[in-house]
Structures are given as C-alpha cells and as structure tokens.
C-alpha cells in the first residue's frame, strides 16, 4: 500500500462500506429496467419527486406508468420503449453501496452492454419465466465470461406470468445453468422473482414459498468488490515518460503486484534492467513518504540509469519478468458490422502497447446466442471466436490465466474499438517452451551468437559450418549482401548449398547476375520453383498482376511464389544462411547473428547482420564481386520485378518494395516467424 496517511478517513462510514458495481443483463424485455426500478423504489434510493415526475410525464403521454421509466431517461428511449445505453445508478443497502449499471438487451446495442458490463464486479442475468432462455440470455452469459465478470446470479423474472410454477422455474434453472457451466461459470444463486409485483426481490412472498434460496437483495449482499491483484507479479504498463523538469519520470498504473524503491525491474519487450530510485508524488511534501506502491495506484518512478523506455513498455520485477510475443492467440468478441476475416489488419492493444497486427487464423467462430453452433470462417458482428494475430513488432503480454489485467487484448478496426478478448496462448512462446527441439536450439543459438560475434563475416561462415552438423543452405536473391555472402562461401569452398527461389517474375538483370555468379565461382546455384498447380490456381483467381489489389492478394502471391518454395529449399536443413542486415528496416532490427527457428528446426546465421550498407558496397568493390546492375540505377533491395522499384536518395532501403503498401509490414514472410507468414 501507499504509505500516505489520510487522517480522519477511517471514521467515515461512507468510505469504508464496500462499493460493488453490478450489471444487469439479459434478453430484451425480460424485465431489467423494471427490476432496477423495483430495487430503487424499495430501498428508498430515488431522488425526491423523481417517481412523481415520471408518473406525471406518463400521464401526459397517455401511457401507463412503468418502473422501468426511471432508467429510460432519454426521450429517444421512451419513444422506442427500449434502453439504448448503460445508465449508472446508485443504490444502497445497510451493508454496502452499489452502482447499478443497466445494460441494453437489444442485440443492436451489444457494444453498450459490453461497455457497461466491463465495469462490473458482478452481474445479475435476468430470464423471463414465460419466454425462457433466449438469444441474448445466452450471448450475455457468454460475454460475462469473456469480460471477466465472475460473480453471477440468475434471476428468473415474471414468475407471475407462469402462475409461480416451481416446475417451470426448475426447467429454466437447468437450462441456463447448463449453458453457463459450458464455459465454466457457476451462478451463485438462481432466484424466482416478479419485479413488477415485488416477489423475491426484497422479501420472499407466499407465492414462492417453495423456494429456499436468497432474495435478490440478499444475493446482492454476498457480492464483493473486485480486489486489486496485489498478490500477482508486478505489472506496470508505461503510459508515458515525463520530463517536465530535471526528473525523468516513468508514469503508469500498477495493474498487479507491488513496486518498491530499490527493486530491480526488467522492461519488456526490450529486456533492459534498472533499479527503482524513487517513487514520485505531488504535492512535493508527499515525495519520500512513499517507499512502495501496489496494484491499482497510478504512480511515477525514476530509475537509477537512463534506459530507453517508452509508452507501451511493460515494467516487471527482474525476478518475474513478463513474456513478449509477436504471435498471439486470443478468444475474442467482435462488434464491428464487417465480419473479421483472416488477413484483416487490426490495431492490437495490450495495456498501453499498441501495434499493428494481421489476423492469420480464425477458429471456433460461433454465435454465442445460438443453441446449435455453426462454425464459420469469419467472426460476424456480436459473435465470438479464437483468432491468431501476427504482430508487426513484439509486445509484452501475459496469458489471461496468469494475469487477468495484462492478459487481455483490445482490437481496433477502421479507427474504432471493435473487439476484445482473452489471451489464450502465445504460440511462438509455446513452441519455444514446449517443443523438444526448441530449448536446446535456442540455447545453441545464443551460444553461437556469442562465440561468432567477434569473428569477421568469412570467419563466422566457416565457424558456423564447422559447428553445425548436417545440411546448411544459403538462400540468395542476388542482392548485394547475398553476393558478398556467396563470394565468401565460394572463396572458402565451404560445404554449403547455394539455393535461389525463382519466382518467375524476376528482373532480366537478376537472371544475368545469376549466370555471371555461376561462371565466376564455377558452382551451380540450385533453383527452386513455385508448384505449378498452386501458381496456376493463384493466377486464375487473382489475375496475372492481381497482387497490386490488396495486401492479402500480395501476401497470397508471396506465399505461392516464395514462402512455400523456401520451405522446400530448407526441408531437412539444420542451418540456414541469409544476407540480412539489421539496419535494413525496423522490422529487421531484431535480427541477431544466430537465431533459432524452432518451427523449421534449424539455426539461422546472418553473417552480415551488423554490417552497414557502405561496408557491403566497399567489400563488393574491393573483391570485384559480381553485382546486379540494377543497384547502379537506384535499386536497393531487389525482389520480384513488379514489386520492386528504385528509391530516391535518403529513402529507407526497403522503401522500394511493395511501395504501395503500409510501412509496417514489408516482409514477404520469408523472414518472419513460421506460422505468422501463412
């Protein structure tokens, strides 16, 4: 806890009473607003005159007064007779304070139901005894689960309409309990009521004398406010770094755990470490009073050294650091009217981190409102599903099962929040951790990276060949880096396969360079071609230049012409050599000297990873390495002819690739994590 002293507050009963936020959900017309009206009226929680005022309005409009009018404060709502947004209404019992969040039952307003329910500690799910379990009953029940609302009470309303029949009550109880149980939600109580007549709300009346459980108010009194997750490991998402004065303050809200002066922290995803020097406060007199702070607090800290930290980073204790991932599997709900499909580009938010992501797979898409589930390949509006998202850059994220605050994801689509859900798995992480080959492979990569770092590029190639048993393949596209690597391999006579992927769309200059290289070094370079059946189908589907039309079309073309052939080129290899350099693009900054590729079960060496463009040019010149004449015409990175252009002075090197697309994901998929590419 914060060490701040707040004199006199303990004496204030209003502040020590627990405050519970409750949402009431269920199908439209099952009686939510009436139940709320009943609770407000019977607990004396209405402002003076409100009831009379609304009765007068009803009389003026010639409508019979309904308790639900209390909530339907907007004229538009009254006209349509349905609630369109969440209202927040206070209500008080002797033991605690409640905020009642009304949530609309109409499917059209699910985004408002979610907005309301996401703020709740507990929920009442209301079911009409006559109508029984309906579409929104099931859907809202499922969403409570996805939103993380774990305290649930079911009320079966309008018992007066079924003659207070206990058999009917048990029937519905069984149906809704089975539905909720299907995703692990067990209601704390199932209560028969009539909100209109008052049975079961505050008192158990004679009409339901066969019922032995609590009334609604008694059940409400069992709800507890959500507690900050102080017992979990520290998670402090960085909101900003402030330099208003001589202090450099890292600001954020503690989502879980506790932080204290002197703690060693690790920043994800960078992995950088530092110690906490101070916890800052205002007014200044408070600074120094605070030596530690725990979950729920918005704080600012200074560190003992200047790390590069930015909004979106996640601070954890070094002893319990947060995982980072570039591939996320999540169970989400989707609210946009356009269905979510594989290939969709979304903005992915986890805590304060935000990064562009591409949906790479959709599974188990269902309408949670339906009894019979039909699994679709897209996720429609108000439906749920499991998706895999490949991110443009790694972000810090927990699994939901480990941390409910930092293990959830929010998706923005077309500039608006459109979905959200729970992080089920980090497949990249899982592969590393689970696959038998992964752990030793990663350890080996780390070991080789260190061992080879101080050698020159030719030395790295020779040492890699010496250290790694089995077949090693070098994939070249005849760019300047590749030519330098090819030169080194051939001059040293290393037993490394030279392979190229002929997409069928290369520049004539590239083919000329290919031939010149074979002649210069006296070695054949093995060509791998796309599978003709797949290529024919692609061109049939999208046309000969269809890849210009959309990112998805382009990715499909890259898949058929490059990614699939690459997989064949590397099949059975234990090592893979590339000409990648880290400064070619932001996406490639992460490239190390030796990386593990657990998906393909091989080690990937990029001997030039720390070279600058000028060094490559200098080496090629000094050794008369054959080079693609397009380089002299302003081409930096050379791929397929239709998708490569020259760049101007000062433009980034990869600006000439897929220039009509967004900057963030200029990769064909060869050098992204396997799985992310397809």
């Amino acid at each position, binding site marked *: 806890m914060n060490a701040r002293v707040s004199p006199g507050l303990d004496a204030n009963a*209003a502040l020590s009473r627990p405050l519970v936020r409750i949402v009431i959900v269920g199908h439209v017309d099952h009686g939510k607003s009436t139940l709320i009206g009943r609770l407000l009226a019977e607990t004396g929680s209405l402002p003076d005159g409100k009831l009379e005022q609304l009765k007068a309005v009803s009389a003026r409009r010639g409508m019979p007064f309904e308790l639900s009018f209390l909530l339907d404060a907007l004229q538009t709502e009254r006209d349509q007779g349905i609630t369109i947004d969440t209202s927040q209404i206070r209500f008080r019992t002797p033991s605690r304070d409640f905020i009642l969040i009304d949530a609309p039952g109409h499917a059209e307003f699910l985004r*408002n139901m979610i907005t309301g329910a996401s*703020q709740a500690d507990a929920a009442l799910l209301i079911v009409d005894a006559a109508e029984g379990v309906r579409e929104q009953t099931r859907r809202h029940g499922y969403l409570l689960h996805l939103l993380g609302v774990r305290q649930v009470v079911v009320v079966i309303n309008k018992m007066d309409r079924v003659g207070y029949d206990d058999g009917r009550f048990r029937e519905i109880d069984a149906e809704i309990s089975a539905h909720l149980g299907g995703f692990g939600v067990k209601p704390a109580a199932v209560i028969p009521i009539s909100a209109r007549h008052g049975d079961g709300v505050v008192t158990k009346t004679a009409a339901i004398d066969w019922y032995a459980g609590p009334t609604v108010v008694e059940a409400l009194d069992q709800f507890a406010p959500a507690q900050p997750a102080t017992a979990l490991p520290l998670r402090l998402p960085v*909101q900003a770094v402030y330099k208003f004065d001589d202090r450099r303050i890292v600001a954020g809200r503690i989502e879980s755990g506790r932080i204290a002066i002197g703690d060693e922290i690790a920043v994800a995803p960078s992995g950088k470490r530092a110690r906490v020097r101070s916890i800052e406060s205002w007014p200044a007199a408070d600074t120094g009073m605070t030596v530690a702070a725990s979950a729920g607090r918005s704080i600012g800290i200074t560190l003992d050294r200047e790390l590069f930290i930015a909004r979106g980073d996640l601070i954890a204790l070094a002893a319990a650091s947060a995982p980072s991932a570039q591939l996320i599997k999540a169970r989400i709900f989707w609210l946009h009217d356009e269905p979510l499909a594989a290939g969709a580009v979304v903005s992915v938010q986890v805590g*304060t981190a935000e990064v562009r992501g591409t949906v790479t797979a959709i599974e188990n898409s269902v309408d949670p409102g339906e009894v019979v589930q039909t699994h679709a390949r897209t996720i429609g509006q108000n439906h749920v599903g499991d998706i895999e998202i490949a991110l443009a850059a790694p972000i810090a994220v927990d699994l939901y099962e480990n941390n409910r605050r930092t293990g959830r994801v929010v998706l923005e689509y077309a500039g608006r929040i459109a979905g959200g859900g729970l992080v089920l798995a980090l497949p990249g992480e899982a592969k590393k951790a689970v696959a038998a080959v992964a752990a030793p492979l990663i350890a080996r990569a780390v070991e080789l990276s260190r061992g080879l770092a101080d050698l020159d590029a030719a030395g790295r190639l020779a040492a890699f060949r010496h250290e790694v048993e089995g077949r090693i393949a070098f994939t070249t596209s005849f760019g300047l880096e590749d030519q330098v690597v090819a030169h080194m391999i051939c001059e040293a006579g290393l037993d490394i396969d030279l392979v190229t992927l002929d997409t069928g769309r290369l520049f004539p200059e590239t083919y000329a360079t290919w031939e010149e290289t074979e002649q210069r070094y006296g070695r054949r370079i093995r060509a791998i071609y796309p599978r003709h059946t797949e290529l024919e189908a692609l061109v049939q589907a999208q046309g000969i230049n269809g890849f210009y039309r959309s990112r998805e079309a382009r990715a499909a073309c890259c898949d058929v012409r490059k990614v699939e052939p690459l997989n064949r080129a590397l099949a059975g290899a234990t090592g893979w050599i590339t000409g990648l350099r880290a400064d070619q693009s932001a996406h490639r900054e992460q490239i190390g000297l030796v990386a593990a590729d657990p998906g393909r079960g091989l080690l990937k060496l990029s001997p030039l990873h720390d070279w600058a463009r000028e060094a490559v040019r200098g080496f090629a010149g000094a050794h008369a390495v054959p080079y693609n004449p397009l380089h002299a015409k302003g081409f930096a990175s050379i791929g397929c002819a239709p998708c490569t252009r020259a760049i101007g002075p000062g433009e980034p090197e990869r600006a000439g690739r897929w220039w009509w697309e967004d900057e963030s994901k200029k990769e064909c998929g060869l050098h992204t994590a396997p799985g992310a590419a397809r």
Partner: protein
Amino acid sequence: MDRLDELEAQSIFIFREAFARMKKLALLWSLGKDSNVMIWLARKAFFGHLPFPAMHVDTGKKFPEMYAFRDRYAREWNLDLIVEECPPLEGIDPTLPPAARSAARKTEGLKLALAKHGFDGLIAGIRRDEEATRAKERVFSPRGLEGNWDVRDQPPEFWDHFNARLPAGAHLRVHPILHWTEADIWTYTRREGIPIIPLYLARNGKRYRSLGDADITNPVPSQARTIDEIIAELDTTKTPERSGRAMDHEAEDTFERLRASGYL
C-alpha cells in the same frame, strides 16, 4: 487503498491517456468544485504541472466570487489560462426555453474557441451521477464535426481502452471524473485541502450546490456551512444536484437537447 484512492488513480490514468493520445488538449475550467478537483488531479498526474491550457468559456454572467477565484488560482497554480467570450444571446436558437437558451451561449462559445485554437481534445468535469443523460457518456467521447454528440452511435469502451482516433476537424471530450459522485468530490476536496468558492457554503439557510450563470442559478435550502456539513447533508438528501440550475427543468428534454448539440 480506499475509495478515494481508487477514484484518484483512475482519473490520473485517464489524464495520462488523454495527454499521450491527443495532440492538442485543453481543460475546461468552469471554476466549480468539479473542475477544481480536476485541475488538482491533473497536477497529480503530471507531478505539479498542467501541461495544457485551462480554458474558461466565459458567459460574462458568472458570480463575482467566481471571477475572483479564477484570477487568484490561475496565478497560484501557474495555469496557462485561456478566457474565451461567448457570443450574445441573439445568435442562439430561439426555440429553446429562456434559461436553456442562455446556457446554450456556452455551447456556441465552446465551438468558437475550438475553431480558434484547434484543440482535438477537451477535458471536461462532468459526472455520471449529475444527470441522467450524462450517465450515458463515455470517458473518451467522440464528437461530430459540429461538436455534436450522437448518443445512438457511441463506440464501445471497455477495460480502460479508449477511442482516440478522430476524423480531421472533429474533437474528443475527455471525462476524467465521470465515475465520481458529488459526495466523492466533497470528500476528496476535504482530504486534499482543495480551495473552493465560498458560495458552496450555506449563508442564511441557503447555499449553491452547482454553480452556473448568476441569473439562471439558484441557491438551495441548506444549513451546511462547512465541507464536513456538506458531506453529512449529501448522505441524507434526495434533492438532485442540479435542482438549482433553471435550464434543466424548463422542459423534460431540455438538457438532452443541449447535450446533443454539444453542451457539456
């Protein structure tokens, strides 16, 4: 962590999100109890600084005590104060009832100030418990190009993730104390020692619960002469907070109409 600590932490979080995500912010300073708490929270969020202007959209009809308060604390709190005048009554929708029409000057003044300064985010001290239509608000509330509020098409907002992307020319209202109650405001004001305008305290059996234009705001009967007594009074009262604000009560849907066109 007690309730005030939770409220404070949540508001600070919202302030920092707004400052991180919007390009040009201003805080709307109405000089009332809520916006004073807001300034206090912002200075906590930014460690003593208010890194954007405090804007008073002035109808010219506030109580003298309010102007005195503004001039004193703008200096003491080192605020970057912007005062913008509201247009005259003649330019306002004549179909509105008189007090609402008068209050609507503020909406027009706000629109002019927005156009003049090009703010993309306005921080406003409204609370859900003040009035039923405000209960419908989002924390980050996108406004149309005319500054209007479309209650039917509000984006979803959950888990403290806010919609901050806007079409060019539109702006966003940010509501850092949306989840506070009137009693929370007073309890926090007492705990933190935040200065208030004395009109809130009872004199001769009356006090102002909500401050607006002098000609359309009335005091309510009250014996509460200290903040402690206000807190005790609120614990038992069933009178709505805005009962002294004439424009809310002229017609059933007045306040809703004001808000749909951009009123706070």
